[in-house]
Structures are given as structure tokens and as C-alpha cells.
């Protein structure tokens, strides 16, 4: 192969290579977050963050007006159940798959305002599960791993938001085996 051909191959492959690389970037960043939080707090567990300030480095662009809690989930061993009391001020529960897509979410806004004061219980099931086999509010994750993020308004008095997040849980669904 001549050197001219060799250089041409590099240029073409380099140009084409930027596209799979762009697709890889979200996965790499999400993977880093997933492992960082999972190693620190465990998987399928709720982790309530301190109010964001300049030392907050878990996620880029944290809002200082919100309190966050997150659960890095793994559905390989079965469904995960998330329980959360819904405070009066802004609150939301968002689900992200490993390519960063925000594939599902619930909140206390608009038509869901009736959730205020209630306890939300969501069963999060994996991509191969049959949601019809579960009762209550069921969300199907397109991937077995992902991140669930709770946001609660900390504007003014943050105590309501903190109580709501600290009273939330994320845990593997117990399996009952008949004998």
C-alpha cells in the first residue's frame, strides 16, 4: 500500500470515527457516575446529597436551589421498589438509562399535583420483565442499569424537602418463595 493510500485511510477512518466516539461519550460519563456513586453508597439504595455548593462534584451543573437524592439501580436480580413522600413544593422523580436518556419521570406538577401529600411507590422493572405481573405504579427501564434522581425544591425553608428525601427509599423487591 502506498503512503498516499495509507494517509487517505487514516483521514477517512478518523472522520468516520468521530460519530461512534460521540455515541460513546454519554455512556462513558454515565458509567463513571454510576460506579462512583454505586461504590460509595451501594447499588439499589437511596443516597441523599448535601445541598449543592462549590464542593459538590457528583454531577455537573448542580442546582443550589434543589436538594437531590439518587439511586443507582441494577435490575439483574429483579425489580427495585422506590418509596417517596411527595412534599408540597416542587418535587420530581426522574429515571435515566445508561445513554443518559430521561426515559420516564413523575412529579407533583400539572395534572400530577394531586400527588402532593401522598406516598409514591414505584416498582421499577427490567427490560425483559412483564410489567403486568406487578401491581401498583410500574415503570419499565429500557436497560438493566440506570439512575433514578429525586429533586426537591430547597428554596426558602429546605426542611420539608430534606424530610421528604430522607424519608425516601430504594430497595430490591423481596422475593417470596413458596414451599
Amino acid at each position, binding site marked *: 500500500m502506498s503512503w498516499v493510500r495509507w494517509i487517505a485511510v487514516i483521514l477517512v477512518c478518523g472522520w468516520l*470515527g468521530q460519530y461512534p*466516539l460521540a455515541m460513546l461519550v454519554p455512556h462513558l460519563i454515565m458509567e463513571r457516575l454510576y460506579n462512583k456513586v454505586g461504590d460509595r453508597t451501594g447499588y439499589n439504595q437511596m443516597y441523599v446529597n448535601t445541598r449543592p455548593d*462549590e464542593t459538590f462534584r457528583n454531577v*455537573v*451543573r448542580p442546582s443550589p436551589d434543589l436538594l437531590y437524592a439518587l439511586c443507582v439501580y441494577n435490575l439483574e436480580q429483579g425489580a427495585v421498589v422506590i418509596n417517596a413522600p411527595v412534599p408540597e413544593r416542587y418535587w420530581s422523580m*426522574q429515571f435515566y438509562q445508561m445513554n*443518559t*436518556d430521561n426515559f420516564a419521570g413523575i412529579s407533583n406538577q400539572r395534572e400530577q399535583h394531586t400527588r402532593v401529600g401522598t406516598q409514591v411507590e414505584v416498582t421499577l422493572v427490567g427490560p425483559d420483565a412483564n410489567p403486568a405481573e406487578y401491581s401498583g405504579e410500574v415503570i419499565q427501564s429500557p436497560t438493566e442499569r440506570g439512575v433514578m434522581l429525586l429533586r426537591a425544591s430547597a428554596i426558602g425553608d429546605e426542611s420539608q424537602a430534606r424530610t421528604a428525601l430522607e424519608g425516601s427509599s430504594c430497595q430490591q423487591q423481596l422475593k417470596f418463595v413458596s414451599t
Partner: protein
Amino acid sequence: MTSKGNTFFNRLRVLRWPLAVLLVAALSVFLLQGALKTGLRESFLRNGDWRTSESIGAADADAVVRAIVAIGGLLGSTREESMYYTLNSVAGEPLRLNCRYRIEGSDYDANWWSITAYGWDFYLIPNQEKRYSYNNENLIRGEDGRWVIRVGVSEQEGNWLPVGPSGTLAETNSMAHDFDLLLRLYTPGNAYLQHPESAPLPTVIKEACS
């Protein structure tokens, strides 16, 4: 050609494929960096000096938008939940620490909204006041409900949003700007959902530079 020259080319011939892989990877990274910068200009909508994307967090986001969001706005919600407008330059001039800026606005159709300053590293900017943002509730307003936020390194009267060096080493900064502003609109109204490029937003003005 001398035998020394032949040896060099023979060695290069042996290494040409490993070398090619390295060059392809380096070229891909270089081109992607350019694509991300161009993408920010071309894939994001403009509303004055503010930029936003309708596909943040959405399944229909293209690879470049998704990569930009992962780098500078991971775990952003879809627009029905919240809309994010960023501003890193005024009239084409990147935001600088040696300049003072004024943000003017009123109220916006959303459950709540806030304006936050971030360092070029996308994290909150260290400052003694521990003040990183203003929201629709904590602003000092005029009688007509309008407000002004002053952005700069030195203390200013009224709503002062302090900025300064980012927490990350300045030597690693590859951005043109020193900091940027992010407007969050949670549960935005129809004007933002249907016409994000023309919906009302605060105005940012550069006052002076030293």
C-alpha cells in the same frame, strides 16, 4: 537512498498499522471536539444570547446533542419537566471575569425559575458569600416587579451574583469563556415549550471591563 534511510523506512513500514490506529483515534477526538463546539452553535436553538435544545434528555436527541448534554448537563430533564437556557457570551464576546454584567428581567411562566453562575468547569463557583444563584423568590425587585442582577467579581449593591476563578485548575481550561449562566425554568409554560426561540427571557448586558 542510503542503508540508514532504508532501515528507517522499513521500521516505519512495520509500525504503520499501530501508528495508523493511534492517528485515527487522535483525529477522531480532534474532529469530535470541533463537532461539539459547532454542535453547540448549530444544534442548539438561539433566543438572543441564550441557547437551548428541545431534545435535552429526550430519546430523539442526536449523538452530538447527547454528548454535549452528557459533558455539560448530565441528568438534565426533558423539556416538559424543565427547560435550560445557557449563556456564555454577550453579543459574541465570551463572559470574562474582568468584566461586569447586568441581567434584567421580570417574571417567567414556570412553576419556579432560577439563574445560576457556573465556572467553565460546569461546577458552582467558589465565593465567600456562598451565593451561586438567584431564583424567583429571593430577588430584590422594583415596585413593578422587575429586577436587576449584577454579575462580577467585586461586591455590588442589590442582587449581586459573585463570580471568580473556577474550582478546577485554570491551565486545563479549553473554553473561550471564564464562566457561564444557566436559566432553569421548571414546569415551563406553553410559550417555552412551543416557541423556545422567542419566549421571553432575561436580558444580559455587558457594563464595563477592566
